[in-house]
């Protein structure tokens, strides 16, 4: 039995088992997996910078704080409004991301996260509380903590991915709990979806000048039971999202959350594009799939993104290695 699935005794043993399942520190890493992680980290870095400059640009037309969020409760974020200061913050953030990405400064990503929080507080001071950038923010936090605390690239990678799965699972399950607490079990009532469809259609009307219902929206408006079914599938997917903390449930649960987003788009035309792309990256063991295709390997791909260990089940820390490229646990891409 692999270490990630070995069920120990109650207490610290359970915690040990949980953390090993989540982070998979003992799993060997292939070259393909390292390439995948570089792609994943690059995706987060690029969109962190993109958000920063987009928000810095937007606050040039903002003049007043309507609803203070986060740090805006303590500092006057209006100094960023209609000012080059916002672009200065975005510039510093870009530098911090570059320093983190190139491993020049281990606190680069943490500083980038703090600066992005400041820009978020300025941009979303107008009353809207969006959640489209939260997954990216939590991933940046995972990358930042991993880079700041661990010396070995292998641990940084595993920590960042495990932390990301943990925060995504926690977030969706929390969202389901909020619904059940805020409204109760009758949250599933299809009439609730019907009023949201009108609300979101007005949003589209305001944004584009055109008002119409899509086929899926028409179905939900015409058939109460279909609307109820949509809500039921949605909340069950959210509620069980925490199961992605364990590798054996990762693929089905991340795919279920992706399906949830597809349903949200079809019924309410809300798109979380960056979150969706990140979920696609996290849903399947892409590195392993690439290895099968390009290296013609017959290796099985059971877990995203790290396969089961084929070396040792011993609970020992890994011996120090001079660099990630010579890490004995990072096997080169090889045909089987």
């Amino acid at each position, binding site marked *: 039995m692999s270490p990630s699935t070995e069920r120990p005794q109650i207490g*610290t043993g359970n*915690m*040990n088992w949980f*953390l*090993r399942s989540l*982070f998979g*520190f003992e799993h060997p890493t292939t070259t393909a997996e390292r390439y995948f992680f570089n792609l994943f980290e690059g995706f987060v870095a690029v969109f962190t910078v993109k958000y920063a400059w987009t928000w810095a640009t*937007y606050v040039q*037309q903002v*003049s*007043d704080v*309507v*609803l203070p*969020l*986060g740090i805006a409760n303590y500092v006057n974020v209006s100094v960023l409004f209609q000012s080059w200061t916002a672009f200065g913050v975005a510039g510093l953030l870009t530098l911090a991301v570059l320093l983190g990405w190139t491993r020049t400064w281990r606190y680069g990503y943490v500083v980038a996260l703090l600066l992005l929080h400041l820009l978020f*507080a300025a941009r*979303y001071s*107008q*009353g*809207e*509380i969006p*959640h489209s*950038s*939260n*997954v990216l*923010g939590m991933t940046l936090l995972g990358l930042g*903590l991993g880079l700041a*605390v*661990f010396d070995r690239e292998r*641990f940084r990678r595993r*920590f960042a991915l*495990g932390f990301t799965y*943990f925060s995504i699972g926690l977030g*969706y399950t*929390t*969202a389901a709990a*909020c*619904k059940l*607490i*805020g*409204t109760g079990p*009758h*949250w599933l*009532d299809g*009439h*609730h979806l019907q*009023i949201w469809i*009108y*609300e979101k259609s*007005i*949003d589209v*009307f*305001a*944004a*584009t*000048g*055109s*008002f119409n219902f899509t086929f899926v929206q028409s179905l939900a408006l015409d058939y109460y039971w279909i609307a109820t079914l949509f809500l039921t599938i949605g909340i069950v997917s959210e509620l069980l999202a925490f199961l992605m903390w364990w590798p054996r449930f990762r693929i089905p649960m991340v795919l279920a959350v992706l399906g949830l987003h597809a349903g949200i788009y079809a019924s309410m035309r809300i798109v979380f594009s960056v979150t969706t792309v990140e979920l696609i990256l996290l849903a399947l063991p892409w590195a392993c799939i690439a290895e099968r295709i390009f290296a013609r390997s017959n290796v099985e791909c059971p877990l995203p993104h790290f396969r089961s260990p084929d070396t040792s089940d011993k609970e*020992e*820390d890994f011996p120090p290695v001079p660099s990630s490229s010579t890490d004995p646990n990072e096997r080169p891409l090889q045909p089987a």
Partner: protein
Amino acid sequence: MTRALQRAGRLLFGTLLVYALLVATHKGEFWPFSIYPMFSQAGNPFSRAVVRDVSNDATPVEWDTTALSSLPGQPFALRPNGVDNIDLANFVSKTETWTPKRVEGLRSLFKPHLPDHKLLVMRVNGRMVEGDSVVVEFVPYVYMHADSTALHPNLRRPTMATTATHP
């Protein structure tokens, strides 16, 4: 437990603690931490905002509540004109007193368009009636042109009595 795993565990649960403290003391939101309360209050009425371009309307602006099928003027699409529709909706619905600063804040969102457009900002109120159908009403709120602004007569202004009601 390996040292790396111990360190990861401390980081994870330390972050969880900070997460819980920050969302508990900031109404559930401290980016990137959140309790994700969207859609948690099901069945509540909603409030949004749309903008109409009334440049070609010959008649003076009317302040009566209307329906989707009888809106004045032409649509003024916000997205291509660089205005966030949710920001506008929140600006309109969360403004209790229309001070000159607030009015100027609203005008600044549309500044590039006011010299050659007459715009009417309308609040949209939606609610469920009799448990199974949705009613959507459009209330004219603010009329803006290059050098003039007019507010719905019932909107609260700084000099008005505090008993004035929202339309």
